[in-house]
């Protein structure tokens, strides 16, 4: 009975989370939804006499893999939301058909099967429980596959390093180079630090120049956009104008990029 309740609750939760994963516009939400699904599954594993897997699921998936996902999301840019316009003709329609059909087929297949009452893994676990029993299998019958997975993991680690490694294409800048770049550049003086003349030292507070005006370079664009989306406007009209200017510039660039993108896709067709 307990299992049934757990199942139904978690089934509803995991399916809705999976749907959320697919349908949420923002990648971060998707990631979180995936976390929910994984956690639900971990519980379902536990319910099904697989405590070890449940633990591994939480540790490896929810802990490590999800972290990686989030990390990369942050790296790639958390602020970009997917465009909802489908560019491949018929893709969405056929994807729906295929998805539904596939689900229906599998579900039908599974539903039509008549199972004897589950045997449960208790019998094979004997004394010592799930983990030693698994360990015994892993290190006896499947030891070769296990060793292979270790090799796989090492290879993957190496591969990730190689892939993510950025080759230095020009010599490392010396102090002399930096100095020259600075004095030949438009601004020899250091950039104003946030809050140099500020009343706050928070990151959302732009720096003031010695004359008291706001330095446009110090406006945090991400925060500014969030604030704007939330409807928060700086009270100072000068600062508001500056913020708007920065945001507009950003939007213009984004639109520009989107337009080029669309043009490319148009070309592709």
């Amino acid at each position, binding site marked *: 009975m307990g299992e049934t309740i757990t199942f139904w609750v978690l089934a509803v939760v995991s399916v809705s989370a999976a749907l959320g994963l697919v349908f949420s516009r923002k990648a971060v939400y*998707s990631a979180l939804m995936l976390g929910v699904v994984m956690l639900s599954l971990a519980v379902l594993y536990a319910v099904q006499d697989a405590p070890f897997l449940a633990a591994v699921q939480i540790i490896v998936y929810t802990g490590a893999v999800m972290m990686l996902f989030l990390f990369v999301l942050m790296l790639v840019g958390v602020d970009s939301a997917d465009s909802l316009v489908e560019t491949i003709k018929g893709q969405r329609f056929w994807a729906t058909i*295929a*998805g539904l059909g596939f*689900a229906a087929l599998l*579900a039908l297949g599974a539903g039509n099967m008549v*199972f004897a009452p589950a045997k449960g893994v208790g019998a094979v676990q004997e004394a010592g429980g799930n983990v030693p029993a698994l360990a015994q299998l892993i290190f006896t019958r499947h030891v070769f596959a296990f060793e292979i997975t270790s090799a796989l993991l090492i290879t993957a680690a190496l591969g990730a390093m190689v892939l993510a490694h950025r080759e230095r294409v020009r010599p490392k800048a010396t102090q002399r180079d930096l100095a020259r770049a600075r004095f030949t550049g438009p601004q020899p003086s250091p950039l104003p630090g946030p809050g140099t003349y500020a009343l706050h030292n928070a990151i959302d507070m732009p720096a003031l120049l010695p004359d008291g005006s706001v330095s446009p370079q110090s406006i945090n664009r991400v925060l500014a956009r969030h604030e704007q989306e939330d409807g928060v406007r700086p009270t100072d009209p000068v600062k508001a104008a500056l913020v708007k200017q920065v945001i507009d510039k950003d939007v213009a660039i984004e639109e520009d990029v989107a337009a080029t993108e669309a043009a490319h896709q148009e070309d592709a067709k």
Partner: protein
Amino acid sequence: MTTHYLVLSALLFAIGGAGVLVRRNAIVVFMCVELMLNACNLAFVTFARQHGNLDGQLIAFFVMVVAAAEVVIGLAIIVMIFRTRRSASVDDANLLKY
């Protein structure tokens, strides 16, 4: 009960599959793939219990390991592509065609 688990697994798998098809953000696509793998794992675990041996659990374990490796490499590739193309959309990487 087994049937229920299997149907749930099937649903999750199909949702994951549909997600792969409709989402363009590579990272989200990846997540959907992970979802499909997890759905499979659920089926494995269910069958392990049904048949009363641990092989299903074992294979689920291996799937996790492989998935972990895959995520590492996959994400590294995504990062690399993003670096060069400033985009994480799978549709942008369409040069290998015709």
